[in-house]
């Protein structure tokens, strides 16, 4: 399977990464090289095989649904690129 330029642009948009018109053809070639590399997997018979989920059979631990953390606004906002009154600041989202 190989991707065309329109698909490259669509993937870039889904991934929220802007791609310039110059970059797109290079990226297309590289993605196709990788997709070509993984193509052989189509020849493997996986009929009736379960997808792998863990190394050893292991039950996921559960804990009581209770608050164990909180009241750390300063820590949460410490690395914010923009903040105001205890909130993250973002561009206007709703017109």
């Amino acid at each position, binding site marked *: 399977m190989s991707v065309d330029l329109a698909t490259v642009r669509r993937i870039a948009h889904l*991934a929220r990464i802007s791609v310039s018109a110059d970059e797109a053809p290079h990226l297309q070639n590289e*993605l196709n090289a*990788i997709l070509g590399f993984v193509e052989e997997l189509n020849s*493997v018979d996986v009929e009736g095989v379960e*997808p*792998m989920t863990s190394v050893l059979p292991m039950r996921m631990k559960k804990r009581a649904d209770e608050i164990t953390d909180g009241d750390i606004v300063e820590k949460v906002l410490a690395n914010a690129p923009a903040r105001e009154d205890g909130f993250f600041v973002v561009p206007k989202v709703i017109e």
Partner: protein
Amino acid sequence: MTDLTRLTLAQARDGLKAKSFTSVELTQAHIDAVARAKQLNCYIVETPEKALAQAKASDAKLAKAEGGALEGLPLGIKDLYCTEGVQTTAGSHILEGFVPQYESTVTTNLWRDGAVMLGKLNLDEFAMGSSNETSYFGPVVSPWRRKGADGKISDAKIVPGGSSGGSSAAVAAHLCLGATATDTGGSIRQPAAFTGTVGIKPTYGRCSRWGIVAFASSLDQAGPIARTVRDAAILLRSMAGHDAKDTTSFDAPVPDYEKSVGASVKGKVIGIPKEYRLDGMSAEIAALWDQGVAWLRAAGAEIREISLPHTRHALPAYYIVAPAEASSNLARYDGIRYGLRKTGKDIADLYEKTRAEGFGKEVRRRIMIGTYVLSAGYYDAYYLRAQKIRTLIKRDFDLAYAAGVDAILTPATPSPAFAQGEKGSSDPVEMYLNDVFTVTVNMAGLPGLVVPAGMSSDGLPLGLQLIGRPFEEETLFSLGEAIEQAAPKIVLPESWWG
């Protein structure tokens, strides 16, 4: 006084206990070595004040004959581990200036046991790479140099492997006693092989992933790089252990791995997988492998040829699973809560500009591949199929172990280290092939140890890999030490880096 940076971690530990020197002296010797070795670019951030404060506290404990298993021992920390109050970048522009407000579980365990932090070690961006050339903070240079056909040492800059290239180069160049690293497809073992150091990727779940910047969560594992098998065993014991904050963390006691170093390997059954003898394998890699077989046989192990028929699918399947999980994990870097932000005309434009500028080329490429294979209509054909192939790969190992094999011996890498710019510039797959022997181990979740075993014709170190049963790292330490004892000593060239 002898140069304290020449000691192994175990020797330094014993020296501190015997009061032959203090942790402050030991730490200062390393701080000075790091300061002289800037051209290797191993450290992104150096933390000498923090190191000396920790060393002083350790000396107070040591004076009272107290302290933990790593009391007063200076280490380097891969810059993928979040360290409270110390910038953590994952080698990426998008995290430049990010100062975690919390400490990763593995580093918390190290400080609990008394270790001293020298600084944060360089790596491939988000641990994606095999040469440390994708770091936003510049490539790491290996202390090793290549010998030309005329026998002269070339000054071409050799890569230290990746992604844990800062860790491997710093350990090899004596810029720390040991280092933390992480391994998603070979990122501990390939750099160890390239620099003549020892690296172990433990079983998936042995070390907590909490507070380590995520790449591919079903594959990522923490582990140490050190100069001897014993040192790696000492470090892993402190790093490992159950953590309620990582639901995939394994709840079982951590053995005293050091006790298995030096244990007899008599009667151990070593599998030699015929599928690893790749077409076009270089003669010196094949010879090194044969030599490893001979050493283990001489140590009393039983050698058995085995078959792992799905081996060749591991690398392609990895290049679906790892990018898919990465595209999901890296969605969090959106310029809103931390890290880089580029302003845009609206929120979507902000995301797209921030991510385009914040991520490097290789990371963008892998996010794109991952996004594609997870996009509507392709999930079953790619990701689900790859996860089924993982089951087949793991089943190959399960069958070998069920038939009595204790561990498997393979080469670590298909070639010795190369020079900067030599690989992967036109075709990304060329670089990916570095992980051909290591990636199966991540796909199956098994432990893998790399130990130096010889030298290439151009004067660079080569390593062998031992693959173990789940949670039987002890067997790997015993076998690794047997190879370490038998192999010629790997001697680093005289310091040219300061």
